[in-house]
């Protein structure tokens, strides 16, 4: 098992890098799409209702199914001079972008309202929420394993398949879960720590609305 781990870990880490790349791209895409939607909803103009409808639609989007839909249905497309093929990687980014857009829109509207009512902490907590959403998307990018993106889960799955004994398979998955848990709990605790600091700095009541919570897409 030790020998296997020595071979497995470098591949796993390079796979994890792909997860981070996907999450970064999806979050950037989500901000580009979500920010105008949030602005439209916040300013209550003509575009407010269609924007609200669009965000409501985005909230119902099942990321996993959208990913399959994009891989199988969306044809190659041209953007300016560049030709894009709907690769599995792009499909995962696009499907997570939809989730991120709804998240950014919802939370940006709330942050803008709080800012208008004179509470800068909510706006700052929005940034913290984005950081948390980013890590949630790192985990969710594991869905890419189902469509052929070679990321951390795919690497794990590929190694598991080579192990004939169920015990070894469980052990390897256990190791991976421990790695994920150690890394991500550390990150979550850091986020919570900063959140606490922000609360203290701006005297925010403990039971105030927790904007920064992000569920998995």
């Amino acid at each position, binding site marked *: 098992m030790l020998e296997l781990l020595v071979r497995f870990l470098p591949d796993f880490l390079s796979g994890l890098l792909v997860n981070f790349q996907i999450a970064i791209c999806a979050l950037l895409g989500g901000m580009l799409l979500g920010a105008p939607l949030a602005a439209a909803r916040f300013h209550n103009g003509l575009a407010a209702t269609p924007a609200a409808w669009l965000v409501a639609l985005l909230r119902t989007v099942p990321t996993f199914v959208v990913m*399959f839909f994009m891989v199988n249905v969306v044809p190659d497309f041209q953007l300016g001079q560049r030709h894009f093929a709907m690769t599995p990687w792009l499909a995962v980014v696009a499907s997570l972008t939809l989730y991120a857009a709804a998240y950014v829109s919802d939370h940006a509207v709330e942050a803008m309202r709080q800012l208008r009512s004179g509470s800068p902490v909510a706006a700052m907590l929005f940034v913290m929420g984005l950081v948390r959403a980013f890590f949630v998307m790192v985990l969710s990018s594991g869905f890419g394993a189902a469509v052929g993106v070679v990321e951390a889960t795919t690497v794990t799955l590929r190694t598991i398949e080579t192990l004939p004994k169920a015990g070894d398979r469980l052990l390897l998955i256990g190791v991976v879960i421990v790695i994920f848990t150690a890394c991500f709990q550390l990150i979550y605790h850091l986020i919570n720590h900063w959140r606490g600091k922000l609360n203290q700095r701006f005297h925010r009541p403990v039971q105030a609305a927790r904007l920064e919570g992000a569920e998995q897409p």
Partner: protein
Amino acid sequence: MRMCSVEKSGPAMRAMVAICRLLVLGSMLLLGFSAAAQDTRPPQQAPAAQATTTAPTKGKNCDDAVDVLSRVLCTKTLRVGVRTGYPPFAFEDAAGALQGFEIDLAHQLAGSLGVEPVLVVVTPANRLALLGEGRVDLVIATMGHTLQRDREALFVRPHYYQSQTIVLGRKDLQIGGLVKLRGNTVCVTVGNSTNAELSVNGARLKLFDKASSLVDELRLGGCSLVAQDDSFFASYLQQPAFAEAYDSKFGFAPLPWGVAVARDGGERLADVLALSMQQLHISGALQALAKKHGVDSPFLAQQHRLWSSSQCAQISALNDPACVTAPLDNQLQPTSFAPLVDRLEHFIYRATGTRVTLAMFKTWVALDLLLEGVWFSLLLVMGAVLATWGFALAFGAGLTSQRRWLRVAMRCVLWPMQSTPLILLMILAGVVVGAMGATSPLVALAAAVLVLGLFNGSNAGQAVAEAMLTLREERAPAQPALSAAVYRARAQMVAFVVNATRGSPAASVMGVPELLAALTDVASFSSERITTYTFLLIFYMVLVAVVHKLANVWQSRLALSGGAYA
């Protein structure tokens, strides 16, 4: 051109070759006379047809011949539709010349007729159309002989090759057979009829447009197992590096390959070619040709023995079911209302201009998969919602329990749930279920419900626990009820219940036959993906919207009766 020739053949083989040539020429003469006797064409065409069998001359009259054999003999050319880019069967060499098993076979058959072959490159998409339009005289283009293709072309029997679908993967993977595929992901090309067999046996299918993508994915690690015709992998398995890393696990669905001629006017050519093919099998020339190109197979050895036997070595044996291989019937049984579905598709097209193909309603296999998928999806979502709810309460209570060990135990479960990709948890559950020897879809469903419930319920439970802690701070020293914490954390509860619904299709990775898995299977053999995946997306979006609505109704009712909790 040599006919029935074998490299390095002995005296016995040379005698056989001579006999075979005599037989083919004799039969051509017989067919020529019988054609003249049975000719029912207009008087102005009859002399041309006679000219083809007696004194062949090239010219306009040759091209006017309705009978393909007459035209071939008249023009002294045989236009053969062949593929390219499919080594070692047909491919271009460095000089751009066509090479391969089928190319050599085309030369052999043209030689048996005493004419020059003219090779016309065809594709799987246009080979039958070109044959029907008379732009080629015959097709030797890796074409499997199926009952369905019998309607479009006349297949020469005996067949010249037989392929089968093989499941290929890395050498370190142990896959015993078709029934051992349950739960494994197999990469396939869309439209392959054998995909239905894989999905019926519980394999999860990943779809690709081109066969070459399968090899790319295999090398990149995106696919562990791929299924495709063994003829496609023949050239790859001849490469030492590829053969070192991958091997064929097993094969299924044998498919005989046939030389095809046009249904209209191709009958006599088919008869003559059948005789040539019989002699190629008897003499072993076909097997030698296959060996030369590295595609020898047990089928060719078996055909050599069969056609050399006393029963099948006769001309009359060419119609004997005991000698000729039957075509494959890969037609899926249509539903009783398939014509109605066709009419509906036409109606939608006329009304909207959009082509919709409702493949899931057209065959019983697809419909069964669809209904099973819908049923499992509904069960999965209901189970996931209830489990999320139940685990949220359990985690809410456990994380705020007075007992320290319970709080620690709950945290030990909560942390991995918050930090591990859902899909990895699904895979873990799949391994556990597999280790227990349970392969039933219902067991997989139960495990998936458990994972979805734990994953979302633990997060929702944390929200409930946090709400409970703030309530305790506010109401100390009174002990607030769990229901009050649930009321306070209701928005998070709704969010995670909806989240469980959205995440439920991920259960397909552990073998739950829900709608995503079912429709992927349907798409794999129906070749239709746009309508199928659009239907799937709409189904899940509606399902999420319904659960969202119901959860909001619950939240509103809770708010109305909020006084009781708060």
